[in-house]
């Protein structure tokens, strides 16, 4: 099956400081891919760059194709049809991601008008259907509410309804549950999984939490300092993480059973993007570092079927969590 979206050597820099240093990634139709990494690793920038949503000072290079058609640096009219149409995006903080001065219904109807040509009563009826679909109680009345009148979880449902308005083939969810309470996070993840099944939509779930991604995705890409360091099916990444950073991320999650001992925290911190190490960006924090790691950036290597890792010393680590 050909990929729906393919990123090739996508790189971004702001005022000469690299934020994304060459990403290769393919999303298949209907699949759920998790992108995991710490703040500043470039997981959000990747998709903002791909959709042309970064501010003008960002320098974006590489290639992004949707069904083999190049969309990076496409004309504004082309991008506007695409964004919210074939590819939709939702964000971390639902309360500030909705326009505070417009009614929710108006904001959803705007997307319906742009992508499905619906106006007036037809748009409103469809907006109500979408509100029902994402589980907003009392949908008809909520259409006339303002964002500040709803809770964070309800606003995120509105964001999802708005994203569904264009019947997208791919939904990018950028930390959709980070700002929400634990029980609401569970509701939203459940909703996303159900919608993906029902609408046969591909999902990219960006999160700092491996646990969240594990719950909702088939496959995961682990990012560190602007690169993908490992890519594998979910089960495999927990069973046999190949990159020491992935290994560290898993070890940093507090276990929910077993004896309590100090967590295997990754020492040190993320390198300054203005002063990247010459070789592997993780080398300064890596317990398995050898001299060769500091010479050149390691190429991504195939570890097993659908499992790649960019590490000279990549070999199957033992399972961290049985």
């Amino acid at each position, binding site marked *: 099956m050909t990929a729906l979206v393919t990123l090739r050597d996508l790189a971004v820099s702001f005022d000469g400081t690299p934020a994304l240093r060459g990403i290769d990634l393919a999303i298949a139709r209907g699949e759920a891919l998790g992108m995991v990494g*710490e*703040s500043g690793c470039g997981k959000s920038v990747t998709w903002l760059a791909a959709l042309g949503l970064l501010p003008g000072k960002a320098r974006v290079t590489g290639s992004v194709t949707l069904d083999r058609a190049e969309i990076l640096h496409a004309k504004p009219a082309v991008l506007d049809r695409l964004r919210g149409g074939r590819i939709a995006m939702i964000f971390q903080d639902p309360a500030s991601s909705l326009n505070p001065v417009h009614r929710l219904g108006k904001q959803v109807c705007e997307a319906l008008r742009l992508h499905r040509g619906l106006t007036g009563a037809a748009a409103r009826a469809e907006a109500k259907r979408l509100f029902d679909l994402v589980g907003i109680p009392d949908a008809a009345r909520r259409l006339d509410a303002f964002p500040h009148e709803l*809770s964070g*979880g*309800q606003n995120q449902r509105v964001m999802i309804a708005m994203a569904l308005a264009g019947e997208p083939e791919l939904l990018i969810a950028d930390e959709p549950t980070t700002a929400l*309470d*634990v*029980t*609401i*996070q*569970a*509701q939203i*993840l*459940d909703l996303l999984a159900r919608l993906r099944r029902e609408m046969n939509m591909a999902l990219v779930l960006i999160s*700092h*939490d*491996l*646990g*969240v991604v*594990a*719950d909702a995705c088939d496959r995961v890409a682990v990012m560190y300092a602007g690169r993908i360091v490992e890519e594998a099916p*979910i*089960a495999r990444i*927990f069973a046999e993480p190949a990159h020491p950073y992935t290994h*560290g*991320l898993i*070890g*940093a*999650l*507090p*276990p*929910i*059973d077993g004896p*309590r001992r*100090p*967590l*295997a*925290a*990754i*020492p040190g*911190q*993320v390198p300054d993007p203005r002063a990247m190490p010459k070789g592997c960006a993780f080398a300064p924090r890596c317990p398995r570092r050898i001299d060769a790691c500091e010479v050149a950036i390691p190429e991504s290597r195939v570890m097993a079927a659908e499992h790649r890792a960019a590490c000279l010393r990549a070999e199957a680590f033992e399972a961290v*969590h049985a």
Partner: protein
Amino acid sequence: MRTSPITTPLLEAQNLMRRYWMRRGAFGKATEVRAVDGVSLSLERGKTLGLVGESGCGKSTTGRLVLGLETPDAGTVAFQGAPMPAPGTAPWRAQRARMQMVFQDPLGALDRRLTIGVQVREPLDIHGIGDAAAREKRVLHLLHATGLRPEQAERYPHELSGGQRQRAVLARALATDPALLVCDEPISALDVSIQAQVMNLLVKLQREFGTAILFISHDLRAVRQVSHRVAVMYLGRIVEEGEPDDVLHSPAHPYSQALVSAIPHPGRGGQRILLQGDPPNPADRPSGCAFHPRCPVAFARCSQESPALTARPDGRLVACHLAHEPAIARAA
């Protein structure tokens, strides 16, 4: 200071209440919001109590009440066996040196214009502890204990990473050798790998300094990692309290069950308990058990009668009409 017998807990809060008045809408009448509604807790010397719950459950307010930063409308707080002095008085200020608070946002907690060294030293200056040489030595010791390098004393907050700032905040909090540390979501603003560092550090510092910790968090995993006991709060009340492993592995209250099942982790099937609705609004408190509108096992009595927090035979404290009947609780 009175020497208290070993059996007295370091901190004992009885039936704390905190109300606010809130007006909703321009025409609205002021309604009473019970942020904390009868919370009792006790904390042993050198131990950690984890306080877990969602936003608006009153966990932060509870933290401020036990520190004396807010005065309860009812209930008492006893610290080392003695009641809390009135806020603003000299004994209260002296007490402040023995209890410290650590917040979520370390950048907001630090003064941008002062170096880390000056800020760690500040509590020593304020409370007049030791001479200049002793203070310098203490600062170096604190930096070392929290994993900061001596030369980072000369740095300003913005020159440090988030994790290092939280280390600096901890160093400052520990300067006066407090008996109690209240940590309000101390790791939730940090990255995963840094969260692990700070959790390890908290455990290490507790061993080294013998500090008791009230660890407030929404994250049950983190609470288990650092706590000796855990109390689950819902809408201003503690609904369950017990050993962390017990609560995590066999949660007794339906709310704890939902919280535990919401913990994302790999390899869990689809057996998650999904709660309906939003976290409740403290200004619009349901009748009876506050959890009953979202509770998957609620029955008639739950909407009329508020369950008391009582001990089960195994010592677990639970506030649920059903939890004391094991058969039904398990069926949930």
